[in-house]
């Protein structure tokens, strides 16, 4: 009898894990609380570092899981573990018996309004990176009409004790430069500035993206965290930051300000997580067994984690972890 594996979360991690488990002859069951699979990446326009269209990747992933048993608009309301596996109750009152559980619940985007000084939700032309990505997909956003000066603020909701997120959210620097190039393509004669503390271009081809952003797209990177944003009489944004490399504070008026919001752990799984006895680490993400050989395991046998639920991750990281969790589950089943 092919064992059921319960996968909570139908984003990139959940889908990829299901695909691999299927190939290994197991029966993955995906429970997704939203109305469709794909997670955050499904709403992305293009991926860094080479501006690859996101739905290329998402189409392939969706195609691979088309005959996997999937519950949409459904959440796990209760879960028990007994000696022959896990007994889960879903919000549509169905029950699932599974040999192992994979938590692939991913991340939530930091609520930008928590950084009040940036005026998100208060000033007209402040938006988040996710909303800018929507603009690239749809081409429409009330806040963007032929802006002449655009600013990107890095580390919004990350590396910041004041919002209790001291970790680095890993992908926003690269995303910021990608978006800076993309917005420059849309508005070629706009001036684009990014305000960073450190430009963490960690992956392969990322430094080339940085060089391209500077040279071909003439984006100006200013080292200094924006401290305060306010609105002037005609609704444009006045930002204050210190150019720490020049050693002087600077003031600038912008038409659009994009906040690079960090990743935070998806809180909606907390109840089930406590039922399963999985704790959170100091960053508020799920605590895996250990960072090296136990990155997919947890303190509870049979409960596995993959993707951004344990720490901020890029798409390649997530896919990698989804594939590794499949083998961990396979080994666990056949131990």
């Amino acid at each position, binding site marked *: 009898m092919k064992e059921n594996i319960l996968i909570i979360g139908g984003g990139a991690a959940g889908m990829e894990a299901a695909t691999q488990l299927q190939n290994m002859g197991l029966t993955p069951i995906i429970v997704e609380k939203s109305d469709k699979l794909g997670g955050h990446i499904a709403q992305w326009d293009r991926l860094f570092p080479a501006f690859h269209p996101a739905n290329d990747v998402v189409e392939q992933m969706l195609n691979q899981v088309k005959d996997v048993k999937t519950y949409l608009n459904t959440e796990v309301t209760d879960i028990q573990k007994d000696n022959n596996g896990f007994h889960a109750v879903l919000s549509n009152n169905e029950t699932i018996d599974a040999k192992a559980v994979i938590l692939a619940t991913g991340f939530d985007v930091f609520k930008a*309004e928590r950084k*009040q*000084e940036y*005026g*998100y*939700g*208060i*000033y*007209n032309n402040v938006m988040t990176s996710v909303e800018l990505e929507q603009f690239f997909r749809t081409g429409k956003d009330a806040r963007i009409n032929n802006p002449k000066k655009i600013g990107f603020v890095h580390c919004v909701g990350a590396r910041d004790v004041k919002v209790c997120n001291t970790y680095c959210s890993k992908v926003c620097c690269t995303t910021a430069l990608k978006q800076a190039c993309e917005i420059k393509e849309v508005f070629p004669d706009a001036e684009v500035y990014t305000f960073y503390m450190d430009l963490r271009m960690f992956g392969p081809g990322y430094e080339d993206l940085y060089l391209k952003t500077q040279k071909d797209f003439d984006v100006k990177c200013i080292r200094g965290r924006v401290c*305060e944003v*306010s*609105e*002037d*009489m005609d*609704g444009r944004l*006045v930002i204050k930051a210190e150019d720490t490399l020049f050693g002087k504070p600077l003031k600038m008026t912008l038409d659009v300000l994009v906040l690079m919001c960090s990743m935070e752990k998806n809180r909606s799984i907390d109840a089930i997580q406590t039922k399963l006895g999985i704790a959170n680490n100091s960053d508020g993400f799920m605590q895996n067994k250990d960072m090296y050989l136990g990155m997919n395991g947890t303190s509870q046998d049979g409960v596995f984690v993959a993707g951004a639920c344990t720490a901020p991750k890029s798409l390649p990281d997530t896919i990698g972890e989804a594939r590794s969790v499949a083998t961990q589950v396979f080994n666990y089943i056949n131990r």
Partner: protein
Amino acid sequence: MIIEGKQKIWADYQKDIPDDHYFYVRSCIRQAFFPGSEVTFLDITRNKLGKDFYENPYHTTCGGIAYHSDTIPQETAMTIIARQFALMKESGYENYVCSCITSFGCYTETLETWHEYPELEAKIRQYLWDSCKKEFAKPKYLAHASDIIYKLRFEIAKQSKFKLVNVKTGKPLKVVEHIGCHYSKMFPSKGFGGAEYPHVLVGMIEAWGGEVVDYPERRQCCGFGFRQYFVQANRGYSESNTHKKFESMEPYEPDLIITNCPGCPYFLDRWQYVIAEQTGKTYGKNGYGIPALTYEEVAGLVMGYDPWDLGLQMHQVAIEPLLEKMGIPYDPKKKYQGLNGKDLGVPQCPMHIKSV
């Protein structure tokens, strides 16, 4: 500006404080700067609104002016504050209200520090006993005088005789609100509306018919800070802070500045004269400045007090244009007469800023 965004924040930062039975302490310098303010506060609360605000004659400074000038250690200041609380206890009150913003900051800081370090509270209790043989009790509610006026703003509006409206044009006056830094920047949760968009003065302006001006340098400090302006050589630094604010609010052409701290109205008022003398520039219309009043004085104006009883003639910036805008009658001759009609003498008229 998306007003719903602000209202959401204001909803997050609500302070539940009673609006009666308070032990009132004065500020050590506000009487010197604007003598009408504190007496008006007591008159409005006691006589106009019938509230119980007791003032113990033996209360002293909170020690903030020395503490923030680095001349006394924090424990000394805490002992002074403990003595104030002791007086409150002896007078049978458990709600404490102070008139000065810096005091409010010191009291909040002290209570928070005692909360975090109970052993320090015990030590201060011992110091107080050794020095004055008094026992103190921590107040149940701590408020700033502007919180009270904020809570009673609608009652005041009901009894108001004038609105913050330009009677000639019918349009609401454009009012700049400036919050004292020690009010909510240090402990955002202790101020109505939090630190970024405090609501305490905005509430009053909107309740009394005015329109709030939200200019970029709204959060900029007025530059009063004890350490800065005590030494004459540093005073330019203080003045520049105010100058920065006026340069930023100028395009909005505000009619009035409302403040809730001893220092801000004083600096926002006096520096307009110094800036005018030094740069020849004034920020009000045709040579006048922008009047900078305390919330008590504005409450007084709205409730129909005589401007000279509010002590508005003590302000550097002439108040007459505002009175005309609000349609408040005033007797120019009695401007510089004492209570018993004695002539106090007209101050020398400055070169650049009109003072009627």
